[in-house]
């Protein structure tokens, strides 16, 4: 069992449905690697495209597993790529599936998160609001004219994640197809945030009183969290 088994299954089911409708495109990492790295602040007047504007729809989460999913590095796209989008602003979802060996899941999560936060690309601005699983991006006109595409972002994220010692595979999934698909991913996004919240509470606050904890229902349904709690309280060592 893994922390995110249900969420991975949900995402895989979503992808299977989209694949059956030929609505998923797959990209390899190598052809899209090497876009220059740079932290950018892009104002509206320089913006060619906006993804995940707070008022439009936005979702971002990382899930991982030692068993299934992300068997090889790849980028998947549901919906139009940047050069195919005909409006200035679209809903946006970025999901990252990581495969690896996670001895201390909390520490591993922190490293994965760092790898994602540190991925900054020239002409592309990302802002994230982890507590609400939101991601807000802007692509500047110059980057779009130079051919910047979502697979460039996916490749940079995968490169960054593969630099983490315990990661053996990474899959980045982008959804730009609209609000309906975003709705379908709301549940795994929300559940992921709750699991991460519970993990964070246990590890940061060191409070293990389930009765007063707002995450008790999450732990009840995720065996790995209960294991983590037992490990942290020393119950496993006894």
């Amino acid at each position, binding site marked *: 069992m893994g922390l995110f088994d249900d969420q991975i299954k949900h995402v895989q089911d979503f992808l299977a449905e989209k694949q059956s409708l030929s609505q998923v495109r797959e990209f390899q990492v190598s052809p899209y690697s090497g876009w220059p790295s740079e932290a950018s602040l892009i104002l509206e007047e320089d913006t060619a495209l906006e993804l995940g504007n707070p008022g439009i729809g936005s979702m971002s989460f990382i899930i991982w597993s030692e068993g299934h999913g992300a068997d090889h590095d790849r980028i998947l796209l549901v919906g139009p790529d940047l050069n195919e989008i005909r409006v200035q602003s679209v809903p946006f979802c970025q999901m990252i599936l990581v495969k690896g060996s996670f001895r201390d899941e909390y520490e591993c999560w*922190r490293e994965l998160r760092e790898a994602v936060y540190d991925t900054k690309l020239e002409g592309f601005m990302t802002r994230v609001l982890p507590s609400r699983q939101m991601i807000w991006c802007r692509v500047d006109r110059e980057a779009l004219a130079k051919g910047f595409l979502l697979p460039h972002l996916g490749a940079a994220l995968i490169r960054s994640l593969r630099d983490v010692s315990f990661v053996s595979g990474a899959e980045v999934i982008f959804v730009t197809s609209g609000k309906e698909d975003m709705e379908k991913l709301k549940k795994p996004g929300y559940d992921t945030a709750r699991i991460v919240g519970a993990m*964070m509470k246990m590890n*940061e606050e060191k409070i293990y009183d389930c009765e007063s904890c707002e995450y008790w229902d999450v732990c009840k349904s995720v065996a790995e969290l209960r294991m983590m709690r037992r490990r942290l309280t020393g119950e496993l060592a006894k």
Partner: protein
Amino acid sequence: MRHKVVAICGKGGAGKTTVSAVFAKALSERNDLRALVVDADPTGGLGMALSIPVKRSIDEVRAETIRAIKTGESDRRDIAVSADYLLMEAISERGNLAFLSIGRPEQIGCYCSVNSLLRDAIEFLVGNFDITLIDAEAGIEQVNRDVMRAVEFIVLVSDTSAKGIRVAETIKKVAEEISGQNKTGLLLNRVRSEDEVREIEARTELEVIGWFPEDETIRRFDAQELSFFDLPPCPASKGVVEALERAKILD
């Protein structure tokens, strides 16, 4: 011009917001640069003068950040990236200008870690603009704060009263004690004649960079809440822009 930070300071009612609004208009006409305009006066007059709606103030960002810490929903790293997000959300944009309002502090208590996170986020923000204009709070309160350390030029706005000039002199002195790096210049408001300027120059060590008279156009724009972006050429705007040019602030 890279990362220049200019603060407009002075006693209450001296005309800081008028100067800031005219300055912002001048910056909006410079397509070769990106400017960040910060309304640091809790009364929020600059946003009104420019007719820029405030989406969310820095203090609201601060309050939300404090809430996230209290509920334990985020750790320090997440809070830092969230601050970048919330600040971006708080920015109102108009062409090459980005506008931020500090707001009115409502959360009582010491939240040094939040202030430090926000300071880092704002410093990053400032680093992405060619010029940052700060319309400061009245008096010398903000001169004591960290924000002033980064200020390269302080425009001291005063009317011709002795009290106004004294406040301007105090601000210069305090700023020198804090950083010693700021340049300062006195911009006189409600001047009736050049002789009056000469008289003031004779009794202060402050460098007078310019002056402007009481102006009917400004009065009308204030009274009717018209946007200073639409301000036609007038004696006050001419005086402000000439002073900024003389002090090489617009270079």
